[in-house]
């Protein structure tokens, strides 16, 4: 394996609220290689977005407090970097696209002036050069008349078109890492298929690393090389997409896969996971899944399990493994 472009070690991001400390991210470690797509799967409140946004400095502190860990981008710890350094990296070397393409575009500005902004700011391009690059970027994401699109306002576009604009904007600076936070969740399936194809194509061309956050196991199965499964701020399982889908070792991953409706087969029954996700401000320090887990033991309530490696590059955090 080559050197990772981004390596996060034992990241802890806690929200300090009136009701107590909410451990939104509690000891997450992962890395991404250039050219690779890392899928991050989890339900709402699992910390999958906060994890990425916290080390980029996109969440105000307070209420967020980074309680520990490192986030190394090309060897620089982003958690210790100065604000000016972060401004140079964000939207330049590390870009992000969000779920809601309507709220992430400025409704008052034409698409063109929003698209050239990162180029003028980060790459010292003249407005004319930037305009040309931006217009090519729009063509690359499949917008048929890029010049007209540059002069349009965001409200003139459909959701799918806006998300294309967001992708174009994120990629004009040729970033090393693209963080895509549920980029297709608000879109219709036929549009989602188009957007995923565009992302795959552009990744192959540029060799960037993609961190793809989603709750949709089907989307991850198609796009990710490796998958992280998160639950209640904790990492439960990590492995190649094949490991996680075919040889999953964690009861939560297994239960999640069983409870997902599928289009390719008629399922006679859908075994739901009982109960509800835990309240993050009232975690006890044990495994957060133990109340809903069909196979829990006494130790699960009090102690978070240590890492277990069922095979190289495949890790799982579950007490069941220790007994085996």
């Amino acid at each position, binding site marked *: 394996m080559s050197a990772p472009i981004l390596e996060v070690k034992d990241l802890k991001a806690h929200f300090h609220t009136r009701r107590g400390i909410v451990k939104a991210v509690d000891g997450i470690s992962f890395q991404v290689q250039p050219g690779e797509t890392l899928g991050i799967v989890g*339900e709402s409140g699992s910390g999958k977005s906060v994890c990425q946004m916290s080390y980029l400095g996109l969440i105000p502190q307070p209420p967020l407090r980074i309680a520990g860990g490192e986030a190394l981008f090309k060897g620089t710890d982003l958690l210790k970097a100065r604000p000016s350094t972060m401004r140079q990296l964000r939207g330049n070397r590390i870009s992000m696209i969000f779920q809601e393409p309507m709220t992430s575009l400025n409704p008052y500005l034409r698409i063109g002036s929003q698209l050239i902004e990162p180029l003028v700011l980060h790459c010292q391009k003249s407005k004319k050069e930037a305009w040309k690059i931006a217009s090519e970027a729009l063509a690359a994401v499949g917008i048929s008349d890029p010049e007209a699109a540059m002069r349009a306002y965001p409200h003139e576009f459909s959701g799918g078109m806006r998300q294309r604009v967001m992708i174009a904007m994120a990629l004009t600076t040729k970033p090393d890492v693209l963080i895509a936070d549920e980029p297709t969740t608000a879109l*219709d399936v*036929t549009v989602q298929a188009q957007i995923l194809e565009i992302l795959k194509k552009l990744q192959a061309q540029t060799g960037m690393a993609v961190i793809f956050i989603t709750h949709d196991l089907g989307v991850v*199965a198609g796009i990710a090389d490796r998958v992280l499964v998160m639950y209640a701020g904790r990492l439960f399982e990590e492995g190649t997409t094949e490991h996680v*889908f075919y040889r999953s070792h964690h009861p939560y991953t297994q239960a*999640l896969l069983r409870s997902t*409706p599928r289009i390719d087969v*008629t399922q006679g029954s859908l075994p739901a996971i009982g109960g509800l996700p835990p309240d993050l401000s009232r975690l006890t320090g044990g495994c957060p899944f133990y109340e*809903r887990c069909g196979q829990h033991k006494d130790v699960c309530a009090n102690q978070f399990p240590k890492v277990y490696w069922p095979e190289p590059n495949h890790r799982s955090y579950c007490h069941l493994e220790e007994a085996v």
Partner: protein
Amino acid sequence: MSTAAMVVEDLKVHYPVRKHLFSPSKSTFLKAVDGVSLELRPGEILGLVGESGCGKSSLGRAIIRLNKPTSGKVQIGGVDFLSLQGAPLRKARTQVQMIFQDPYASLDPRMTVFDILAEPLVTHKTRDRQLLARKIRLSLETVGLSSRALKKYPHEFSGGQRQRIAIARALILEPKVIIADEPVSSLDVSVQAQILNLLKQIQTQFGLSMIFISHNLAVVRYISDRIAVMYLGKIVEVAPRDELYRSPRHPYTQALISAVPIPDPRLERERRRIPLTGELPSPINPPKGCAFCTRCSKVFDRCRTEAPVLRSVASAHSVSCFEVEKSP
């Protein structure tokens, strides 16, 4: 036909639109639902699928008169529900109940669960405290909530639990038909499965009929007996569940099914997608002829001038497509 739980005939919902804010006339119309006919059989779950803007929610809301239909008929138990007024209408309303997508918006935050569940009973059936309490406890039990919930307010519950309360409210008048509009779309997978199983369970337990509106074709495959696919205000294909997924005939249905990801890496990567080009046309100015002709890969001249109608291609399987008519 008389055995059907509900028959919808040529239902149209056209919303008037102004060209500009100050233009005097409302001469143009947005045709959200443009001539939909369907039959809901007793004890079946009919899935109604389509992408955003296809009119599936407008149809569901028009059936229970939340939106005023422009024309058409909805027959429930031999009576035209849309022409009823006054007392007979109030009586008929108890037969059709609705479950909405957003359990945060569909429950009044200032009412306790008891009040939420008592309201329909007080309006339509009884004011007897004891009877109310018994009925409410029973319906809570059915949806898997304890009677401790009665004194709580909606904000004290999670999304999945709120949807259980909404289901209890829909059940409490013992309706014949339930219209569920995206009832699981705002829920996480693990909770979604709970609610889907609950909906299936109440359908069998009470023998009611359900229209399940959703954009999620995988969810619809799990829950429905029969499925209708909508595009731009019209139903383009109706078929029994397994037949629709095994051999979809309409080019739009084929493209739609091929676009849904499968949570299995090997299968997912080997799939051939049928790409849809272009954008969804505006329902204010839909294409002449077949609504899908602007994006269809099998389009030919006739499609652009003449609108196809639903025709039977197999038992209980109907498609509106000239290409399918050519080679049945």
